[in-house]
């Protein structure tokens, strides 16, 4: 029974307006196996899962479950075919009881409607099978996220599903909670369920999975047996480089000026937020480009948000030029001449309906307050300077920014932050999803910026890029800074990959 193919997705393509999110991707799930789906942002993982679970319709390809080809037009169709899903954000109803959430839509019914006694008994039984002993009549919201995840899995088992999809179920759990989850996953696997497991944590992949499918940029990289794929190879496949290429790329960073001399622009000491960033220290000097390297979910973005005050830290302190500051809001950070460009350009960067000009002056204007408007001449001056400097196309500042390409939107956003005259600028994935030409321009702009004395905190999932532009690199793994690397002539991408992968025997570099 184990090893038998249960679900087979072949040649799947999905196109969104302007973007081919999935291009000829295969995925095969087998009974009694845990299958990990790996890839960085934009690889197409979530799109593929949504195709499998009936949220999106596929444009091309076929989905075969238990030998029969299926067309899913809703999540209900997929559930009926035996595919159950537990999402990253718990997709249950917090206002209902645990038992109701497990049984919703399939409550036991008698002559007078729902038989609650039988319904709760069935829920309790489903939980007992997973070793969960909580009261099915308790409110879901009274339990921790971890327990809610387990309840979601219990719901999935009631469906009598042959396939269980776990979409980043561990991203907000601590270690012991993850172990409890894994215990349950193993039980289900041993009972013959095909489990599809999506995560960013390499340790977990190697702990639980039997097989790995890697996606990159909407395409299939390959399917591997976990035991036959060393960590280093997995990371390099996710990031899109072959071994030989990686070794060849060395540091390209320009000469470090007087970095690490004088007063640091910013010092973070023990910044910590529960479930997001472990206690982390960080020092940034003027004129220095510092890279944050790590996989998605390693805490790189979360750390940047804590520094900027986009999220509130639970502990730790921040010093700006050696004097302690409470940066608890973005506004406070901007007031201390810190700027932050979010990785999520669409929902946290651009104001889509507003023009390029308005987007560009927004942060400066917000700093001044509404009663002291920038004059048209001042606006034109800023717009003229940054549209030209960044080479924004089209150069017409009155176009709504949503009509620009991703690369040009990014240039406008860079302009927005530079216009605030920052001493520290945090750039989270400034080159993601933009074409090669624009990417090079933005990299150059960053290097030029540092040359003028601005400190840059640079985050990218493309390690090659991090190694090329950074003077110093902090490496993160499992929500912690695990190493600090001074980027010299002999530093290579593979050194960083070693640190990220945690491959002890290959890590022979300048880890601090």
């Amino acid at each position, binding site marked *: 029974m184990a090893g038998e193919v249960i679900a087979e997705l072949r040649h799947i393509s999905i196109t969104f307006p302007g973007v081919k999110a999935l291009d000829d991707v295969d995925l095969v799930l087998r009974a009694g196996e845990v299958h990990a789906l790996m890839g960085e942002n934009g690889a197409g993982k979530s799109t593929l899962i949504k195709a499998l679970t009936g*949220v999106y319709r596929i444009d091309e390809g076929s989905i075969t479950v238990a030998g029969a080809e299926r067309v899913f037009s809703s999540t209900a169709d997929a559930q009926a075919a035996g595919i159950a899903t537990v999402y990253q954000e718990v997709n249950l109803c917090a206002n209902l009881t645990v038992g109701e959430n497990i049984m919703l839509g399939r409550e036991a019914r008698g002559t007078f409607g729902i038989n609650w006694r039988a319904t709760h008994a069935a829920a309790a039984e489903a939980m007992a099978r997973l070793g969960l002993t909580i009261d099915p009549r308790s409110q879901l919201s009274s339990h921790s996220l971890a327990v809610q995840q387990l309840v979601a899995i219990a719901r999935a088992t009631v469906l009598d599903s042959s396939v269980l999809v776990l979409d980043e179920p561990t991203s907000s759990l601590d270690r012991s909670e993850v172990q409890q989850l894994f215990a349950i996953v193993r039980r289900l696997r041993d009972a013959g369920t095909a489990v599809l497991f999506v995560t960013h944590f390499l340790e977990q992949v190697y702990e639980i999975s039997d097989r790995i499918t890697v996606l990159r940029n909407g395409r299939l990289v390959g399917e591997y047996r976990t035991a036959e794929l060393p960590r280093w190879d997995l990371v390099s496949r996710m990031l899109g480089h072959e071994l030989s290429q990686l070794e060849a790329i060395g540091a390209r960073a320009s000469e470090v000026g007087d970095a690490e001399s004088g007063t640091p622009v910013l010092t973070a000491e023990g910044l910590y937020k529960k479930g997001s960033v472990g206690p982390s220290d960080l020092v940034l000097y003027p004129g220095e480009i510092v890279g944050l390297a790590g996989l998605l979910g390693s805490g790189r973005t979360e750390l940047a948000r804590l520094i900027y005050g986009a999220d509130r830290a639970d502990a730790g302190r921040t010093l700006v030029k050696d004097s302690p500051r409470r940066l608890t809001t973005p*506004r406070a950070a901007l007031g201390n001449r810190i700027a*932050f460009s979010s990785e999520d350009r669409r929902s946290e960067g*651009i104001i889509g309906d507003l023009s390029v000009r*308005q987007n560009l002056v*927004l942060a400066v204007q917000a700093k001044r307050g509404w*009663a002291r408007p920038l004059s048209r001449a001042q606006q034109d001056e800023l717009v003229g300077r940054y549209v030209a400097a960044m080479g924004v196309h089209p150069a017409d500042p009155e176009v709504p920014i949503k009509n620009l390409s991703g690369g040009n939107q990014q240039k406008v956003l860079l302009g927005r932050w530079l216009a605030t005259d920052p001493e520290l600028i945090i750039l989270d994935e400034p080159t993601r999803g933009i074409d090669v030409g624009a990417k090079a321009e933005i990299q150059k702009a960053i290097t030029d910026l540092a040359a003028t004395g601005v400190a840059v905190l640079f985050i990218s999932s493309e390690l090659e890029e991090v190694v090329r532009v950074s003077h110093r690199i902090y490496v993160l793994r499992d929500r912690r800074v695990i190493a600090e690397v001074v980027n010299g002539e002999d530093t290579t991408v593979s050194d960083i990959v070693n640190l990220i992968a945690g491959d002890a025997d290959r890590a022979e570099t300048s880890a601090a």
Partner: protein
Amino acid sequence: MNASRIVHHRLFWPVVALVALILINTISRPTFLSITVKEGGLYGSLIDILRNSSQLMLVALGMTLVIATRGIDLSVGAVLAVAGAVSLTFIGGSSHPGDLGTVTIAVLLGLAVTLVLGAWNGFLVSVIKIQPIIATLLLMFAGRGIAMLITKGQITTINSPPYAQFASGHLLGLPVAFLVALAVTVLVAVVVRRSALGMLMEAVGVNPEASRLAGVQARGIIWIVYALSGLLAGMSGILYSSNIMAADANNAGLNIELDAILAVVIGGTSLAGGRFSIAGTVVGVLIIQTLTTSITFLGIPPAITPVFKAIVVIAICLTQSQRVRAAIGSRHRRTRQTPTAGGLGTESPIEAEKAATA
């Protein structure tokens, strides 16, 4: 090229609708367009429309700003009633109701009270963070009670010639009410567009999270907008009470919040917040008023107006609906961003929003 730009202007269809309404009236009764001069004032159907639209104009102006920040203000009708009650009760209680000073104080008093009521709404929305629809529902309820408390449940009538001027007076041949609405509209438009208020409001309305990260302080902006909405409803209340020279706590501004929302939506400002158009709201108000006037003018019982309004609301909603747009074609597809996971909220799988996942 030029013609297509005109057709694609956001006000093209509203203006066409307005012109069509005027044409229908003129064809059926050519006197519709005629304007006569009597005792230094202009009279005629068109002038009536301008005068009668002034109350709705003021309320809709405030509503435009509130809606731009993703809010809504249901309390304007009740606030309008309070303004009339305060002013007329003051005039009625004074020994010189015809005195210009008395009238000035009465008006300022009425406006001050409504400014406070507006600020209260703003406090609930921006500080306590209660959903706008609920926060303003409270005052929609209690406001009429407050108005009746002030008038002691009577319909306070007064005799004050200066006060009557607001509604029935003429200046330079034009109705004073119209001039008040015009001046206030221009003033608000200039203040909002000349200061950075308009842009920051739009930023908060389009994308609150991106605005927060850009350092925009939404709290103050939202507070101002609700206070302003209250104040403008107060001005409208002065015009209303001046028109009938009575404070009618029960009927003053009844359902005006719904008409105002309708006018804003007709004018092309989305209820989802963001880009707003004061000019669009002006056109929206004129359409509603012309519709009401033409129904009377064409001899249809005015009470049936709601049916026409229902048709207008349904038609506008359908043109704004994603599903209808998707059916009509990709050219009109909206690329508005939503911060949630792409497209899960809708059943249609092919939507621009999903590009966010890529």
